[in-house]
Structure formats: C-alpha cells, structure tokens
C-alpha cells in the first residue's frame, strides 16, 4: 500500500559560499578547533521545520503556501532527493516526479532518442519503452519531427513531447509542482484528460500550487505551509 509518512521531518540546507566550500577553510577550522572561525558549522537554512503528516492511498493533496514556504523542498524530499536532516520520512511506492519534465533531454538528440533518455531516467526497461514509444509519439503529435534534433523544436513542441513521455507510465505516487498546462487549446484539452487519467491510476498525488481554484478542483486534502511548518491540514 502506498504511503507517505513524515514524523518531525526537518530539512536544513547548508549554505556554502566559495570560502566555506574550500579545503583551506576546513583545514584552518580543524587546526583552530573551531574557536577562531566561529562559522565552524557553517550557515544553514531550515526549509522544513519538524513537520508531521501521513498521506495514504487515495489522497489527493494540495500543497499551498507563499513562495519560500517550503513546498518545493518538501516535494523534493518526497522524491527522495533530500534525506531528512532530522526526524524521519517513509516513502512506500514508486514515485513519479513531474517536477522537471524535460530532465536529461538534450537538444542535439532527436525527439526519438530523447524519449529513450527520459524513459530510462524514469527507470523504464527498454522493452517496455519500445512497446509504448509509438503511443508516446502519436500523442505528442510531432509526426516526422520526431526524427529531428530537439533543438529545432518550438517550446510548445518541446513541452508536448516531454509531457507525453512523463505521463506514459503510471506510478504509485505522483509529485507535481503546479498543474501542468500544455500547448494550444486543442492539445491542452487532450493533455488535461491524459493527466487526469494518469493521476487516476496513481494512489497518491501531491500537488504544490498557488491556484486555490485548481487545488479545490483536484484535491481532497489541503496542506498549507508557512516558513517550513504546516499551519493548516485538512
């Protein structure tokens, strides 16, 4: 059963400037026992401040809050990028992160090759990619452009392709930063349907958004964050 469970989850970012990243500073620090260099632990920013929650099967969570409230950091923690610096985080289930749709894609490669790059990054086996590739190309409506290097694409085409790839393989847990809106009127209707379908197949959705309207439409639970803490959950 898919589950996201955080207990007193804390995430501190260390802030490095060029000097604290350097070896010299570290050596001096070691030599002076941290007395003279009073920045011995470095500066860090607390992005998530001891939050607890449990998200279970069937929940569609809208994550709201001002810029810098910790929404994106929380999404990345849920994606397994940032390990908790305090507390614990349990992630049961496969995670599809729609945080960066075109991750790993490269302009020099053709659309076709980029489908492989993106899929392989999502951990899809080659045989499964081959089985789905026609469907992905067809949905993207790129036609013969699929054989052209991606740098020749317009930004709309670029987005259509990466969207088609990322929503081709369902996962237990879907993470999204802002609702995805793709392309012109016609395509965006089609894309909306596909995205809804994709989410329906998932067990848990966490959507960070600024749009109250969007969150009300999609989600059945809203978590509001401020300064790294949860101020409202329900």
């Amino acid at each position: 059963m898919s589950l996201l469970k955080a207990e007193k989850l804390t995430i501190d970012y260390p802030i490095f400037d060029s000097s604290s990243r350097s070896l010299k500073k570290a050596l001096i620090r070691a030599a002076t026992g941290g007395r003279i260099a009073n920045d011995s632990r470095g500066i860090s920013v607390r992005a998530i401040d001891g939050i607890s929650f449990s998200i279970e099967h069937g929940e569609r969570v809208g994550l709201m809050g001002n810029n810098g409230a910790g929404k994106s950091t929380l999404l990345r923690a849920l994606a397994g990028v940032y390990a908790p610096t305090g507390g614990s985080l349990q992630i049961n289930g496969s995670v599809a992160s729609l945080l960066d749709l075109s991750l790993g894609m490269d302009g020099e490669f053709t659309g076709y090759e980029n489908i492989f790059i993106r899929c392989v990054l999502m951990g899809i086996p080659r045989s499964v990619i081959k089985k789905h590739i026609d469907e992905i190309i067809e949905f993207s409506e790129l036609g013969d452009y699929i054989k052209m290097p991606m740098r020749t694409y317009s930004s709309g085409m670029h987005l259509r392709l990466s969207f088609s790839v990322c929503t081709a393989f369902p996962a237990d847990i879907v993470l999204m930063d802002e609702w995805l809106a793709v392309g012109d009127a016609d395509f965006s209707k089609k894309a909306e349907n596909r995205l809804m379908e994709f989410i329906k197949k998932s067990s848990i959705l966490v959507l960070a958004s600024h749009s109250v309207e969007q969150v009300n439409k999609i989600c059945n639970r809203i978590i509001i964050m401020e300064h790294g803490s949860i101020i409202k959950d329900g």
Partner: protein
Amino acid sequence: MNVPPKKIIGEIPAIVTYFNMWFLLGWYDIKQRYRRSVIGPFWITLSTGVMVAAIGFMFSTIFKSAIEEFLPYFAVGQIVWLFFSTQINDSCTTFVQYQSIIKQMSVPLSVHIMRKLWNNLILFGHNFLIIIIVLIIFHKMSWMILLAIPAFILILILLFLVSIMLGIVCTRFRDITQIVAVFMQLIFFFTPILWMKKVLAGRNSWVSDFNPFYHIIEIVRAPLLGEAPAWILWVYMLAYIAIAAAMALFFLKKFRHRVSYWL
C-alpha cells in the same frame, strides 16, 4: 519508476538494477560529444595515435633504446594511463556534472559513477585499436594477452571504488578537484610510462618499486607486451581494492545522503 532511497547500502546492487540507465546515458554522452563530426570518437584514436607515434619515435632516439622495444611499451602504458587518469580526474566532477539529475530524483550515486566510467571505457575502446595495431606491427601478439583481461577487470573495480570516494569528497570540497589534477600530472612523470624502469638501474628504483600507479599500469602492460606480470602485482592490486572498498563504503555510509545538499 524511481525507487525511493534504501536504508541499507543498496549502491552496489544498483549497478545491476540500474544497468539500463547508466549504459544508455553513458553511451549518449559520447554520442552527444561527437555529434555532427564525421569520424566521431575516432578523433580520439587519431589524436592518441599521432601522439604515441611521435613521442615513441622521439624518445626511443633520446633514450637510445630500440624502437621495437620502446614504442609498444610506451603505447600500451600511455593508453592505459590515459584511461586511468582521465577517469580519476572525471570522477571529481561527476556529481557536479550530473547535478540536474541528482537534484531532481533519487538515483544511487554508484549509477552516476558507472555512467562516467562506462563513458571513459568507450573512449578507451577506441584507443585500444592503437594498441592492437602497434602489437601487430611489432609482432608482440601472444596468448599472454588474455591475462590482461582479469588484470583490467581489477583496475575497473579499483577505479569504480576510488571514483565513488573522490566524487563525494570533491563535491564537498571543490578545491580537491584541482589538487587531484595536479597530482595526477606529477605522478605521470614518476611512473615508468614515458621512461623504462630499467633506466633507474638500481639507483632510486624505489620510485617505481613502491609506486602504486606503477603496479596498476604494469599489471596490464606486461601481459599485453607478452610477459606474465609478477605475482606480487596481483597481491598489490587486491590490497589496493580492499583499501579502496573500505574507504568507498565509509564515505557512502557517512555522506551518501549529503551529496544532493552539497550541489
């Protein structure tokens, strides 16, 4: 789909489970670098070939050694060294280079290292053509070559472990990347690659006797040139691997989760 991070050290089995990922991406890295070039990665073969031929001829004259002895010796040593040192240098910047992935999704660190290693292995493959040509020209082909295979596998294991360690350390302390580069440059001159071990003739022979880089190069160079490597070299290699494994595991255990914060 992405698997959430494991609590135990899943970095080693990840090499197998993530095979698809590093294999394809590493291959595409090469493809990308040589896109729109007519002979592609064979530019590497060409440039190494020219260098080996030129230096081979010149230094066999300077050292007054027979070309059929010096050139194959230099060609094999240089090409293995090139692979080894490039991987060591690249390992320092691997995580920084692939940070867009590391900061977006959870992939075991060993997968990125394998991608880089595979990358350099492909380039080594292109350079290996020169070794084959040189061995044929100078009639050095023998069954002994087969012994180079296990030796090379040991080098790969060692490189993988050292790369993990350096990758982690250099992501935290960016200066170490530069230190490693200078160090590798220096080591090249202290290791019998451009010069033969016998020129030391007893004096200062410790420079090569106790030089791990000499052991690493020699264990594949000897069989490629038709001689069995001294048995002690195998012992040395296994010892280096044991030390590197201990260090790599230590760094992984302690800092594996910190790397994404350091980028």
